[in-house]
């Protein structure tokens, strides 16, 4: 433990030296956000380019990679720190821009466009500070993402890494560790919101041995990337927390169940595990104590249902990824029938700060029954798409308008979908709802793992519900009848409605069937899959009604309900539309008003485009 502290202090000195060195040239620090999303937008090229150019132009600078900074809308992003200056984050950095940043900002300290204001408070900030409050975000789980080089354990240790594990092993008994986690009020971040400390306690009390710690990294919600970002940006935080969990429950073996579609996260995890082993932070007799712990990876094939813990365990065992009825809970009978503690990536990432900064500190953040922060992948029709971390209890309005920068193109906000494919769609009246587990459920949605998709007037809520149902129909494992067949039927009814063939009876059926599926399904997937339908029925009934009775889709999304119509008064009979119709749906004599045959029309819009007289409109 002392060794670790010494190591940490030297590393910290080194990092400070790196950051505060008086030598003006050495002080230039460039960090490039190199998570999957950054790399996909060209971050690797930018990083190579900058390193090369610094070399060529004789600028002594250090270029390092780091994890996701959270500004997805502005990838690639880089952080530049000049001597005696606060770090500055630049977005939309391509090679040209990188060149300008080097020439203008780094060489001459002239500002370049595309600077992104820092929009979050760090874990070390004073929580009662006014500026902290103004920033709306506090990064606890993401504390190191975009800050450290995820492939360098020194960076992690320099930021208090493995202090928590050291403290647990040398100063705290397992019961005290569990007590701390319980007192912190931390609840499972995978969606269920089960109190983490209680789960650890139950697993600890289970008699059978050996026990297992499993990290659920099977993030499957479409559009969600919280867990991936943590693993890509700060893998050690998860490794450290798993070891702490192992110590607390009495397990020597940990497994990260991670989807094979996350190659970068897998690679960085592997590197991190290797580094931790070299320093003796994993393996035998950690910190010179009796405690031994090691971690192995298991790859998931990408089945959404394998995020459900019993299904995940069956998949780990090599069986079909299917849930089983609980009880027995995995804490009692899990992997190979032995007590297994399954926590999500984000849950684990919160553990080390709880130990180092104290349960009270953690519990002071958040709302009454939901403590701490929650990471969201903010997406949809919003200006600042990104990865955010807000204290529990933050309102949807703050998230959408303050952090998200409001709706794109100044359009009207319509709905926000939380909780992934089986969450619900909330509407304007919910904008001031504080986000936490219980409030979201009370308003007909759920926390889920942290997907948050914002919709505007151009989105059709029936089509949205159909989109999510299509996903759950695909991803149902097929074990229980209501989920296997019921969701398919829900989807078919929605399809019928969007095609313009729906009846009022169908709306009735959607509701009854949706409720039965929720009430009778075996696992969380089926118990929540009708949420998108039920919540849109509740909050946007008029849109359903319009589809069914008026045969209209106000957002213009449901093509089958759309009609191209020629306004006789404006039509001069120029025949341009008829000539350009690919299916010959338009008839009419020259110089006389034309007519579109609705049975033939394929709604391609070519006629409207060609009409010079504004004679064609849609309903």
């Amino acid at each position: 433990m002392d060794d670790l502290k010494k190591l940490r202090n030297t590393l910290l000195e080194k990092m400070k030296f790196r950051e505060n060195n008086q030598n003006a040239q050495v002080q230039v620090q460039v960090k490039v956000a190199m998570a999957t999303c950054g790399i996909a937008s060209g971050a690797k090229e930018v990083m190579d380019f900058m390193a090369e150019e610094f070399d060529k132009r004789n600028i002594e600078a250090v270029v390092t990679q780091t994890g996701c900074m959270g500004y997805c809308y502005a990838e690639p992003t880089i952080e530049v720190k000049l001597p005696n200056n606060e770090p500055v984050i630049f977005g939309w950095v391509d090679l040209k821009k990188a060149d300008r940043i080097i020439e203008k900002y780094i060489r001459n300290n002239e500002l370049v466009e595309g600077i992104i204001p820092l929009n979050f408070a760090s874990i070390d900030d004073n929580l009662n500070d006014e500026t902290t409050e103004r920033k709306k975000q506090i990064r606890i789980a993401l504390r190191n993402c975009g800050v450290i080089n995820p492939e360098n354990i020194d960076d992690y240790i320099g930021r208090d890494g493995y202090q928590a594990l050291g403290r647990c092993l040398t100063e705290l008994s397992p019961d005290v560790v569990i007590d701390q986690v319980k007192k912190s009020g931390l609840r499972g971040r995978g969606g269920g919101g089960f109190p983490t400390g209680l789960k650890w306690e139950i697993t600890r009390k289970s008699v059978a041995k050996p026990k297992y710690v499993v990290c659920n990294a099977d993030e499957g919600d479409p559009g969600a990337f919280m867990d991936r970002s943590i693993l890509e940006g700060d893998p050690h935080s998860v490794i450290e927390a798993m070891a702490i969990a192992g110590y607390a429950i009495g397990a020597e073996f940990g497994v990260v169940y991670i989807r094979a579609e996350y190659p970068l996260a897998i690679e960085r995890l592997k590197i991190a595990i290797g580094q931790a082993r070299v320093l003796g932070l994993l393996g035998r007799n950690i910190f010179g104590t009796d405690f031994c712990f090691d971690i192995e990876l298991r790859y998931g094939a990408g089945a959404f249902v394998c995020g459900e813990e019993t299904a995940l365990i069956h998949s780990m065992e090599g069986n079909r990824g299917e849930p089983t009825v609980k009880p027995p809970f995995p804490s009692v009978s899990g992997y190979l029938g032995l007590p297994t503690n399954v926590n999500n990536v984000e849950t684990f990432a919160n553990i080390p700060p709880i130990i180092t900064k104290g349960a009270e500190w953690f519990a002071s953040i958040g709302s009454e029954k939901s403590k701490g922060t929650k990471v969201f992948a903010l997406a949809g029709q919003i200006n600042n798409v990104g990865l955010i971390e807000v204290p529990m209890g933050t309102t949807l309005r703050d998230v959408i308008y303050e952090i998200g920068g409001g709706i794109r193109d100044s359009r009207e906000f319509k709905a926000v979908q939380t909780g992934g494919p089986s969450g619900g769609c909330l509407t304007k009246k919910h904008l001031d709802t504080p986000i936490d587990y219980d409030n979201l459920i009370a308003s007909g949605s759920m926390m889920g793992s942290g997907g948050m998709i914002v919709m505007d007037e151009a989105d059709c809520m029936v089509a949205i519900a159909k989109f999510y149902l299509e996903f759950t129909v695909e991803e149902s494992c097929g074990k229980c009848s209501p989920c296997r067949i019921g969701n398919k039927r829900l989807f078919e009814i929605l399809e019928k409605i969007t095609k313009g063939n729906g009846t009022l009876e169908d709306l009735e059926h959607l509701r009854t069937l949706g409720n039965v599926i929720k009430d009778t399904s075996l696992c969380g997937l089926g118990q929540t899959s009708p949420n998108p339908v039920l919540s849109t029925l509740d909050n946007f009934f008029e849109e359903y009604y319009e589809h069914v009775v008026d045969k209209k889709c106000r957002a213009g999304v449901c093509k089958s309900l759309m009609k191209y119509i020629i306004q006789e008064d404006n039509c001069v009979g120029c025949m341009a539309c008829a000539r350009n119709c690919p299916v010959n749906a338009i008839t009419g004599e020259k110089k006389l008003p034309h007519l579109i045959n609705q049975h033939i029309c394929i709604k391609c819009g070519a006629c409207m485009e060609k009409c010079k007289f504004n004679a064609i409109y849609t309903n």
Partner: protein
Amino acid sequence: MESIKITIDKKIIEVPKGTTVLHAARQLGIEIPTLCYFNLGDMNIENKPGGCRVCVVEVEGRRNLAPACVTECTEGMLVNTHSIRVLNSRRTVLELILSDHPYDCLVCAKSGNCELQSLAQKLGIREIHYEGEKSTYRKDTSPAIIRDIDKCIMCRRCEMMCNDFQTVGVLSAINRGFQAVVAPAFEMNLDHSTCTYCGQCVSVCPTGALTEVDHTRKVVNALADPTKTVIVQTAPAVRAALGEEFGLEPGTLVTGKMAAALRQLGFDFVFDTDFAADLTIMEEGTELLDRLTRHLNGDTSVKLPILTSCCPGWVKFFEHNWPDMLDIPSTAKSPQQMFGAIAKNYFADKIKVDRKDMVVVSIMPCLAKKYECTRPEFAVDGNPDVDYALSTRELAHLIKQANIDFLSLPDEDFDNPLGESTGASVIFGTTGGVIEAATRTAYEVFTGKKLEKISFEELRGLENIRHATIDFNGLPINIGIAHGLGYARKLLEDIKAGKSEFHAIEIMACPGGCIGGGGQPYNHGNSDVIKARQTALYKEDIEKPIRKSHENPFVQKLYEEYLGKPMGEISHHLLHTHYFDRTNEVIIDE
């Protein structure tokens, strides 16, 4: 044991900890409907994936409905099994299942025995509110079993039988979501898999998704053909179960009525597989004694234990799994095939009929027998020793189609010479019976002494693995018995590891032996049915004047007239067989 008090439908009951709501309710006389749940408790068979959701009940304080089959009772639990919420949900769930099921009940093989059909009837479903696309799959026909998985409702019973009980591992859930269904891996054909055709999947299937290949039309045609001499043989377990198809209590013996019905159907000779069972004992018993004697004389090349080889499912299982141990099972053919060989050689000669003009039909409690009779080594120039193997169920259909009032038939006897049998052969139909029959003969031949007590109670029962030591005049003979291929596997792994202490092992693939065979009337998860059939066979054994195979006068005569001696040259040719390495027979379809 800790007991728990719960209230179901306002009735209070105290049950041991661990009891499910379903069982507690049954004790109170409350019949919660089930579909995927299946239980043959006495043979350690239970299927409760909690998947169909038909048995849902309302538990006070619980957010959603609870499946009664897997929900354990907890202290003070308040359960309502027929609240409006439960009734509506149950109906809707059943409607959903029906909405993805073909509506061809009129022509479905399972009609009248279909649990889905009876459930729809019980819940009074008259309309399905959620019609939509139906999942469709390729139909797969094998020598014994037809898979029409459009009718699969994912109850997973077959999967449980195939994997957990039989450890054959052919059937399992494939695909996801709406397309999820139980099938062999990669949806390959059964006859390209390691399927043993034990038929237990068919036995437990609640719908028509798994049924036997029906040969009744072929038999009717043969009976109507004046140029054919049609001979029938009936396996021991059939007589203890056939009556169920006509409304008789399980365990009612209908040996005499069955013979009468077969005669009325037009079979030229009504014989008994039991005769061949006695013959099997002569051959297999002799082989056992031969190996035993050589072993005792220090011959190390001799393989012990000897394994019975009457059960075709077991034989195929063995061929797939232990190709390096093919010299362990007895080389004696099964009674069905011994009968076929004797009929088409000895008897055909005797009545001067060309084997090509003779049709041998067997009535079997088994579906693997359909496969066994098609094995090429059991044919001469393409003419099989046994032409068609009908299941007990198929025979019942045949009798009904022929307008025979089965219940009012007088008892008749089998024809001779191939219809005479002993008590020893009757008990072939139950687990432990073959080895008991063999022991009766082997004891008397080996010791030269008459048995004082013919029944060996120590070999009887329904435990999945049993063993007993029989004193052969001072020489202890260790006998092992297993029914269920998963249990057989355990004994085989011991042999392979050199840990087996047995001299002889009897193995039957099906639960309870042939009485629980894949071709028997459906038991719908009632193990009392199988027990009653077992009791019936032991009863017939006791009532038989001759109870030891070697005392069967017609068997003795057959050796005198034709075969010479057991394991002699003709016997070897007609009554023994050999086994094949089938490890390379599994084909993955493109």
